[in-house]
């Protein structure tokens, strides 16, 4: 679509919002004109030259080339742009590992209350009891759900939660002068953030293989652990959509070697109200509130990745956290928690996401949480059963699916030359967002499918119909599948060209 810059090329001169505007604007003004405009642009209405007293050398010479368009032009442009997206609100979106469930509007309303939205982050505690009380309540709920002793809400996404958790592991070993532990173990199928986090925390990464049933290969683990092991990062259910049955043994092995256990909570939806990571032996974990707790993904964020710790790692949790003393809530800082790994954000993380998650938790309640675990698992197993009956191959046909499951399309790829990516693109034409493709890497031509509990049986049945239709098409007219999508705003995009010719910003003139 035309960009806002192209619209501005002809439509400019009518900036929509000028705090003090009353009459006709000129074109995008040169900076000196901007200064003049500033004269009565303040809320005070009092005159004054905003730039007076500032050294000339620090002033901008030419204004930035931002679009200069009318409010209608903006509204129309972004309304029409939005229509080009698939989203939960419009489509089934069974993206494995991402828990694309319904984002309740009531939670959005709660977080949007003026008393939260207009609150300055450095408001003294005395004027923030309600807000702090909300965070405290969420800390308590998350501790209970995970079986942890402490919870810090400050990480701003799963990966930052991982960072916090692994930094805590390091802080723990450091505090004990156990400085030879330089390795973090991860299963081969781990999410990319796990190894990346370990490296960001200064660790080497060592991968541990899975056995053929999809569980961790215990012998390989035994071979890998040792005095260099700082810890093991894993999810359970795993990224293969399987519950790690040997988790008790794994925990023992790692702990016996002096390592700690990190739980990546991205897959918690499957076991909500069914089992707790704390009981499995994990020492530290993060949660993805934008997954399990239904806060909207926002086309790529924001999220929140609270980090929880058991007794052992409690002293190292990042600040700030919320404490309750004598009936009053207050921010706990490093003064209160001298062992803390410290701050991770300018203020206290993504408050708005935390409030949404709290609102969601309050609506679900304990019974609702248990139902989430049940029905997310029911939906995944049902979809797996139906797809299998429709002739598709499950990656782990002998295992129970959790909240998600992996399909392998290598048979189709070999027989018809139609890849998982081709299936994915063709699904878009059926009005369904594609599942996660090619992850986990160890499953060839992989589809990781996570329907979530908020989708209806009808929606799942329609997905089976679509897959069946594409499967047939792949046999009869594979080129048709390989050319997909056909019904979207663009056809398949040239990613190689994008990377090779790097066109990252708008430029005047034809943009191609």
């Amino acid at each position, binding site marked *: 679509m035309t960009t806002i*810059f192209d619209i501005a090329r002809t439509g400019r001169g009518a900036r929509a919002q000028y705090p003090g505007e009353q009459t006709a604007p000129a074109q995008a003004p040169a900076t000196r004109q901007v200064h003049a405009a500033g004269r009565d642009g303040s809320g005070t209405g009092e005159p004054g030259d905003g730039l007076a007293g500032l050294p000339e050398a620090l002033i901008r010479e030419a204004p930035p080339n931002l679009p200069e368009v009318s409010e209608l032009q903006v509204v129309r442009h972004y309304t029409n742009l939005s229509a080009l997206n698939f989203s939960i609100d419009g489509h089934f*979106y069974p993206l494995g590992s991402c828990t694309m469930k319904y984002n309740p509007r009531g939670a959005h309303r709660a977080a949007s209350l003026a008393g939260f939205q207009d609150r300055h982050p450095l408001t003294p505690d*005395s004027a923030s009891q*309600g807000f702090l009380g909300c965070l405290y309540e969420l800390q308590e709920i998350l501790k209970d759900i995970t079986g942890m002793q402490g919870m810090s809400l400050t990480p701003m996404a799963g990966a930052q939660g991982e960072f916090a958790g692994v930094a805590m592991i390091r802080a723990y070993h450091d505090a004990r002068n156990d400085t030879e532990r330089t390795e973090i173990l991860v299963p081969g199928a781990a999410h990319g953030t796990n190894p990346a986090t370990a490296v*960001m925390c200064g660790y080497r990464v060592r991968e541990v293989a899975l056995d053929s049933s999809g569980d961790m290969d215990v012998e390989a683990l035994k071979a890998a652990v040792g005095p260099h092991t700082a810890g093991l990062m894993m999810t359970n259910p795993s990224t293969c959509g399987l519950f790690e049955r040997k988790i008790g043994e794994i925990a023992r092995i790692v702990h016996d070697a002096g390592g700690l256990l990190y739980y990546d909570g991205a897959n918690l939806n499957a076991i909500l109200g069914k089992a707790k990571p704390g009981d499995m032996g994990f020492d530290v974990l993060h949660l993805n509130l934008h997954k399990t707790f239904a806060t909207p993904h926002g086309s790529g964020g924001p999220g929140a990745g609270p980090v929880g710790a058991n007794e052992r790692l409690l002293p190292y949790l990042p600040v700030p956290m919320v404490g309750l003393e004598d009936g009053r809530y207050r921010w706990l800082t490093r003064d209160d928690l001298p062992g803390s790994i410290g701050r991770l*954000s300018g203020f206290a993380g993504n408050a708005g996401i935390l409030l949404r998650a709290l*609102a969601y938790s309050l609506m679900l309640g*304990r019974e609702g949480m248990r139902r989430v675990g049940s029905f997310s698992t029911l939906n995944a197993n049902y979809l797996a059963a139906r797809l299998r009956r429709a002739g598709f191959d499950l990656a782990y046909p002998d295992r129970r699916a959790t909240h998600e499951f992996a399909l392998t399309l290598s048979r189709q790829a070999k027989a018809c030359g139609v890849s998982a990516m081709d299936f994915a693109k063709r699904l878009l034409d059926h009005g369904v967002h594609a599942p996660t493709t090619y992850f986990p890497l160890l499953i060839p031509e992989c589809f990781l499918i996570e329907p979530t509990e908020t989708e209806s*049986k009808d929606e799942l049945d329609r997905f089976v119909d679509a897959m069946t239709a594409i499967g047939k098409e792949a046999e009869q007219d594979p080129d048709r599948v390989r050319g997909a999508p056909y019904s979207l705003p663009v056809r398949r995009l040239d990613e190689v060209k994008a990377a090779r010719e790097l066109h990252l910003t708008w430029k005047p003139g034809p943009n191609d």
Partner: protein
Amino acid sequence: MPFIPHTPEEAGAMLREIGVADMEALFDEIPTELRSDALERVPPGMSEMAMLRWMAERAGNGSGLLCFAGAGSYDHHIPAAVWDLAQRGEFMTAYTPYQAEASQGTLQVIFEYQSMMSELTAMEVSNASVYDGASGLGEAVLMAVRANRRARGGTVLLAESVHPHYREVVANIVGNQGVKTRTLPMRSGAVDVAALGEPNPVAAVVVQQPNFFGLLEQVDAITDWAHERGALVIALVNPMALAVLKPPGRWGSQGADIACGDGQPLGVPMASGGPSFGFLCCRRALVRQMPGRLAGRTLDLDGKAGYTLTLQAREQHIRRGKATSNICTNQGLLVTAATIHMALLGAAGLAQVALGCRNNTRNLVERLTRIRGVETRFDEPFFHECAVDLPKPAQTVLEALIEHGVLGGVALGGYFPDMANTLLVCATEKRTGADIETYARALEGVLA
């Protein structure tokens, strides 16, 4: 209200299709000793109605203060259209645009955002956001160290006048990789350019403009000094101020190498601290060191223009342990809002905001310093924040002002022990003359 659509009949039919007797059977791979449905501290479910009332009661507590606090979060006007558009379900409930063909809306927004941020900072490249300004500065430092490590070792200089929270975050984020941070000392609230000496080699120098105290740094001199010593320059900037201040790309003779900061002033509510977003821009030569998403323009099979995520080989989902960062989820929705905000304001509108803020803060400071015992702590030039010395402990004064409905600023004693009586104040374009008078009267009352 678990938002689950199944009827009991449907659930029954599904269990039959799976071939199990009941829901419990679906969890038969979880060892029994690990099964637990105890959720004692999770309250029973509430209706949306009850939840909203519960939350509203808490939101109301301490709300409605007249805001004169800044220090990294600013009470700007956000045009109504910004969030009316940004919170459309199509933007709000989509995932990261991995399937480009089904995400052209988001991808084009990111492309437009990158273009706007590049313009604003006068840098060649912008990514699609990092978490916030503080963690983004951490990423910028790691980026600089990667780009410059062999030459200059793992040490980075941070000006003392950089936001204290940011300095702490940077130290936490980079410390685990063995990167050291040292402080470039300030004098009278800003980097002491005259005292810049010959430090040990450093990978990068971080300077904030306007700085934590709202003062303007001599960025040209600092930039040139750093470059002469082979260090990269990281500019931590307020994007709103860039409408009138010299952009990082023009600092000194070569321009800064990396520009970053918090995007909150661009259409993001203060929202108790977040979510906001961090922006991160750099010279083109550094793009492969950039963390986070990048959207690029390309063509489709039919030769039609479209957008896709690009250079993904920098990212964790492709490169895993060798990625430029572990960042995955970023702050997409805020980027959408900021893009719409910038489109609505344009260069002139943004300049109007900047100048309105500065005018109001000057009026505020002029009025407050007419009160006996109230004085500015540092000399001009400040931009839209100012440190003010009071005749009493600032924290006590702040608490007392709240009783008058005024959030009087940020007390600096917690950050700088010698500033126990100092308040950092800010009056954005939203503050009227009457608001300033309200503050002054309240302060007179509190100090009397």
